[in-house]
């Protein structure tokens, strides 16, 4: 088996090495990456989308459809994990080793800070790096940290049982709502209004998406940890 693998890797390496020869170096400003679509986003990005963080602008505005499908992908992952049969409850090892008090104290100290920082990342997403996914992932990490402290059932209580399916579906639903709103306002699906007087609406729509992605992503990640661990 090992021989085959090496042979395959060598072949792939060779093709990549030969193939890569003609690639235009990325540094040159006139390289196609920088002068075509990228250049336009850089020049007119801020005024067209109202976001200084161009990556956020591309993610939500120019290529918003990608992110909508992206959010559906992560929802699919959750639906997939939930659809699979339960793999039998794992015998719980005895609680011989409680979490050390020092760790408990530090985690309790840090937990609010993580939450706060995640929210900061979220709301400053259009000015500095950050945004929906990152905040969602931080909420996931927070869930794990709290899991150490509050225990599995404790952490589960963070997300109320009845609201859980709604929260899990928050991101795709919000996207559809914002898309419908955009359609109503600008006549095209997921269209953000350009008119100066509607800038506030545009910010609100973008923020709604960011929050939805963060909350949706965070809850989905939490549920994933929960389902996998159970």
């Amino acid at each position: 088996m090992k021989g085959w693998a090496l042979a395959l890797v060598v072949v792939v390496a060779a093709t990549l090495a030969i193939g890569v020869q003609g690639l235009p170096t990325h540094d040159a400003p006139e390289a196609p990456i920088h002068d075509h679509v990228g250049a336009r986003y850089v020049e007119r990005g801020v005024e067209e989308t109202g976001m200084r963080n161009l990556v956020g602008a591309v993610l939500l505005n120019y290529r918003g459809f990608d992110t909508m499908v992206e959010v559906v992908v992560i929802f699919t992952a959750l639906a997939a994990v939930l659809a699979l049969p339960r793999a039998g409850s794992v015998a719980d090892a005895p609680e011989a080793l409680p979490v050390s008090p020092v760790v408990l104290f530090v985690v309790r100290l840090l937990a609010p800070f993580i939450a706060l920082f995640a929210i900061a990342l979220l709301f400053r997403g259009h000015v500095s790096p950050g945004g929906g996914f990152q905040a969602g992932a931080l909420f996931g990490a927070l869930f794990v940290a709290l899991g150490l402290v509050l225990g599995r059932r404790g952490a589960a209580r963070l997300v109320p049982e009845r609201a859980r399916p709604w929260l899990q579906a928050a991101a795709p639903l919000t996207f559809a709502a914002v898309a419908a709103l955009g359609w109503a306002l600008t006549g095209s699906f997921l269209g953000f209004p350009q008119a100066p007087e509607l800038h506030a609406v545009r910010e609100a729509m973008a923020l709604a998406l960011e929050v939805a992605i963060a909350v949706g992503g965070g809850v989905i990640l939490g549920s994933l940890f929960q389902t996998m661990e159970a």
Partner: protein
Amino acid sequence: MAPFGVDLDYVAVAALFCIGLYMLVAKSNLLKKLLGLNVMETSVFAFIVTSGMVEGGDPPLLVAGAQPPFASPIPQAMVLTGIVVVVSVTAVALSLIVQIYAHYGTLEVDELKERP
């Protein structure tokens, strides 16, 4: 950065791709294979972001003090989406692996092939 005719970054990316591929194909443990898959996928993302980078350029954030040339925002948006895709696929793969272990009691491919 092309000391000997070929971008060092692209060579590193190709090397990473090959390491990941080797792990996916050669390792007999399913978890190791999955790690290999993740390494492969991140290597492609490395290629995408590197292709959008400008030597010494600022990140695409037009705040005060940022001056051109900027790194292109599109590859970064692609990679952001890609990373989330990779995580989703890994989550599903891991839950499948847990199922397989619960049924077969092993994660080694050769042992799996013997059992029905």
